[in-house]
C-alpha cells in the first residue's frame, strides 16, 4: 500500500544547480526528482518531500535521529547524498504504518512507553524494524548494541529495549 507522501513542486531546496534526476522508491511509491549533487538525503526527504518524520539532531553522524531504511538497511540519512539513492528503495517512519495497520515496532513503542519527546523515535524505530527483520529474537544485549547508533536523551533506553522486546514477541519471536 502506498504512503501518503506527495512530492512538492516548490521546494525550499536549491534547485538552480540541479544536475541529477533521481528515481527512488520511497515507502513503496516511486518518485522522480531533480536534486543537486550535494543535497543530503535527509534534506531531500524533509524539505523537498515534506516528510518531516525523519529528524536531524547532530552534525557529526552520531545521533541517528535521521535513520531511514535504504534497501532495508538502517542508515543515517544525514550522511547519505540524495544522488546515492538513485534506483534504490527508501523507507521512512511514514512508511511503517501500512493500510491503517501499525507496524509491531510502532505498537511496541506505544505500549511500553518507549518514547517521551518523540524526537529520536522515528530513527530508533527504523533501526528496530531492521533489527527484528534480521534477528527476530534478540537478547537485551543484542538490542542495546543494535540501537547504539541512536541517541536518546529522554528515556534512558530501558523502555526502548522493552518496546523492541514487545514487538519481537508480537511478531512471533521474543526472548
Amino acid at each position, binding site marked *: 500500500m502506498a504512503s501518503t507522501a506527495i512530492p512538492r513542486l516548490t521546494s525550499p531546496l536549491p534547485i538552480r544547480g540541479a544536475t541529477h534526476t533521481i528515481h527512488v522508491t520511497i515507502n513503496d511509491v516511486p518518485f522522480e526528482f531533480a536534486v543537486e549533487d550535494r543535497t543530503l538525503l535527509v534534506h531531500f526527504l524533509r524539505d523537498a518531500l515534506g516528510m518531516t518524520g525523519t529528524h536531524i539532531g547532530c552534525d557529526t553522524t552520531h545521533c541517528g535521529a535521521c535513520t531511514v531504511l535504504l534497501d532495508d538497511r538502517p542508515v543515517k540519512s544525514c550522511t547519505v547524498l540524495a544522488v546515492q539513492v538513485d534506483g534504490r528503495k527508501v523507507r521512512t517512519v511514514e512508511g511503517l504504518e501500512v493500510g491503517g495497520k501499525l507496524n509491531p515496532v510502532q505498537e511496541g513503542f506505544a505500549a511500553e512507553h518507549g518514547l*517521551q*519527546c518523540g524526537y529520536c523515535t522515528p530513527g530508533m524505530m527504523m533501526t528496530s524494524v531492521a533489527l527484528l527483520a534480521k534477528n527476530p529474537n534478540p537478547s537485551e544485549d543484542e538490542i542495546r548494541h543494535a540501537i547504539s547508533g541512536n541517541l536518546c536523551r529522554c528515556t534512558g533506553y530501558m523502555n526502548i529495549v522493552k518496546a523492541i522486546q514487545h514487538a519481537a514477541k508480537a511478531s512471533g519471536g521474543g526472548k
Partner: protein
Amino acid sequence: MTIHGGIGQSLARKEDARFIRGKGNYVDDIQLPGMLYIDFTRSPYAHAKITAIHPENALKVPGVLAVITGKDLDAAKLAWMPTLMSDTQMVLPIDTVKFQGQEVVAIVAENRYAAADGAAAMEIDYDPLPVVIDPFKALQPDSPLVRPDKPKKSNHIWHWEVGDKAGTDALLAKSDVVVHQDFYIPRLNVSSIETCGCVASFDAMGRLTMYMTTQAPHAIRTVFALVSGLPEQSIRVISPDIGGGFGGKVPVYPGYVVAIVAALKTGHPVKWVETRMNNLMSSSFARDYHITADIGATKDGKLTGLKVKTIADHGYADAAANPSKFPAGLFHIITGSYPFEKAFVEVDGVYTNKPPGGIAYRCSFRVTEAAYTIERLVDEVAHKIGMDPAELRLKNFIPPEAFPYHSALGWTYDSGNYAGALNLAMKMVDYPGLRREQAEKRKQGEFMGIGISSFTEIVGAGPSAQFDILGLKMFESCEIRIHPTGKVMARFGTKSQGQGHETTYAQILATELGLPAESISIEEGDTDTAPYGLGTYASRSTPTAGAAAVIAARKIRDKAQKIAAHLLEVSPEDLEWKDYKFQVKGVPEKSKTMADVAFAAYTNPAPGTEAGLEAVDYYDPPNMTFPFGSYICVVDIDKGTGQVHIRRFVAVDDCGTIINPMVVEGQIHGGLTMGLAPAMYEQITYDAGGNIHGSSFLDYLVPTAVEAPHWETGKTTTPSPHHPIGAKGVGESPTVGAPAAIVNAIVDALSPLGVTSIDIPVYPWKVWQILHDKGVA
C-alpha cells in the same frame, strides 16, 4: 469504582499516536510560504575586537539576500537584550566578541544551503584580546575584564549567602571530625536531540507569530514585548512539539531575536535552527561550579555543621533562568536529608569568556550540585570514622515526625520518609550480601564498590513570596471548559517537552471530573489560547499545574453540583460527590453524572447560574514540594584498564502521589541516564586560550544504550501535605541523585588504596592513574 484513565493508572500516552507515525510538529518541520533561513558566522576567538566585517563575498552567494550585524541591530537598540537573571547579553556583538562560537553576523538566505554558503563566505577580521577562562584568575585584580560595559569594573557578578556563618564556624571548630573536600562540577550542555530554533512570521497587520522551542512561552512573550516594544497582544508564541528541553530551551537566544528582526525587515517568515555544534558552543550550559565544603560530625557519626563556598562560573553573562531572589538557584537545599544544626552557604558568581547560562541540564536550579556535594561529603564522613555509609545515613536522617521540617538554610520541607526509601533500596540490592561480597573481593585484590545517595529534592517553583522570574510570579494555570457532550478541553500555562502532560493532566482531570481520560483533551504552548503560566522546567509542572488542574476542576464541581441539584430537584447541600456522580445523600440511585450536568449547563442551566461549564485557576503554591529517594550503585573496576562497570543500580524514588506509574518510571530512567552522563562521560572544557573541547558529539560523550545500565526502580509514597492530591515533582530527582551514588561507589571501590575523592567525569584514565600510582595497574 475507578474512572477510566484516572490518577494512578499506567494509561498509554495520548501524544504517542502522532509521534510513532512521524507526525510530530517540531519547529524545523514548520514550512511557511516564502520562508527564509538564517545562519550565523561565529567567532573563532574567545575574546576579540571585531575590526572589520567584509560581507561582499557572502552577499554574492546565490540565494543570500541580506546580512545583519551587531551595528545594524544597535541602530534599533536591539544589539543587547536582558537575560532572565536581569543581566544583559548581546544579541549580536557591536565590536567585541566574548566567547568562542559566539554569533557575530547573521546571513539571511532563501534556503539553508545558501545560508550555510553565505556564512562560510563571510570574512571577518578580529584583533584577539586577553582571554579569561579560570574564574579564580578572573577574580584577581589584574585580570582582564570580561564586561567593561558594567559599572562595577570587575569580573565578580554577585555574592549570595544564607545561614549562620559564625555559628557554623564555631560548631565545626568543636566537632570531633571535620571532613574537607573540594569539588569541581564541570560544565555540561544538556543537548536535547532537537536543537533550539524558531520560525518568526509577521502577518499583514504586523502581528508576530513566533514558533519557538521554548519551555516557557508566556514569559518569553512578555520579554519579547518589553524588549521589542511590540504590543504584547500582537505577539503570539507557539511552542509546538519540543524534542526535549531539560532547561536548555528556557533562555532567550540571539537566534530568536535575529529571526524576528529578519522577518520584520524582509516581510517574509524566517527560520532559524541551530546546528549541534552551535548548540554545544553557545546555548545555555549547566554546572561549572567550584565548590569547597566542610562537614562536621561527632566521633560516633552524628552530623553537626556544614559550610560551603562556591565560585560559580557564569560565562560572559548571567543568563541562568533562576528565580530572581536566588542567583545560586536552590543550592541551599544542600543540607539535604540531614538535620544540620548549623549551616552556611556562600556563592560568588564570576564572569569568564565562555557562553552564558547556568542551569540548563535537568538540575532543578542547582540542586544537582547541592545533592552531589552533600552525598559525597556524607560518604567521606562514614569512611573517615569507619562507619558503614548506610548506617551513618540512617543514624542521621530527618525522621518522619519532624516534618514539616525547617532546615538551617531556610527551607520548610513538606514531608519525607528517608529511612523508608533507603531501607527499601538496601533490601532490593541485598546490601548486607553486597558488603560481604565486597569483603571477599578485597581479600582477592579486586575492586568492587557500593555507593549510596539519599537525596532530598526541592521542586514546584514557587510560592509568590519567594519566587519570581524577572518579576513574574511563579504561579501556574489551568483553564477547563466542558462542552455540552461531556468532552473537555483544558489548557495550561506549562509546556511539555516529553513529560506526557497530554496524558497525565487528563488523568488528573478524569479523577476530579469523573469523565474518562479519552474525553479530555489537553493543550499547551499557544500563548493566544493558553492561560498565563511560567512554563515547564525544574520539575514544577505536577506541583503547580497539577494543583491548578485540581482546583479548577473542583471549581467546576462546585458549579456542577448546583446544576445537578437543579436537575434532581433537590438543594445542592443534599448532594454528595461520590463514585464520580452527584448523588442524593442516602438515596444513591438518584444521581447525575458530570456528563449529564455538562449537557444541562447549555440546555437547562440552573436558575441564578450562568450557562456554560468552565473554570480557570491560577495556583500560587503554598510551598515547594520535596521529593526524595535513595539510590544504590554497585561497581566493579577493571584493574588493567581503569574501566568502571556498573553492575547494578537500584533507584528508590518518592514523589508522593503518582499520577501515571509508567510515565514516572520513564522519567526516572531518563533522569538516571542524565545522572550517569556527568558522572562518567560528559564535560565541556576550555583551554587557556578559550578554545572549547566538547563542541560536537565526537567529544561530547552522550551515553548510548550500551553505556546506560539496566536501571532498577522502586518506590515509596509519602504524599505532600499541601498539594491538593499529594503529588510532588519527579523528573529531575534521578539526575540530582545519581551522580553521587556512582561516584561514591567508585571511591568506595578504591578506598582501600586510601582514595577519598576523584574528579568527575570519572574517565578510565583517572582510575587507571590512581591504580598505577598505587602500584596496582
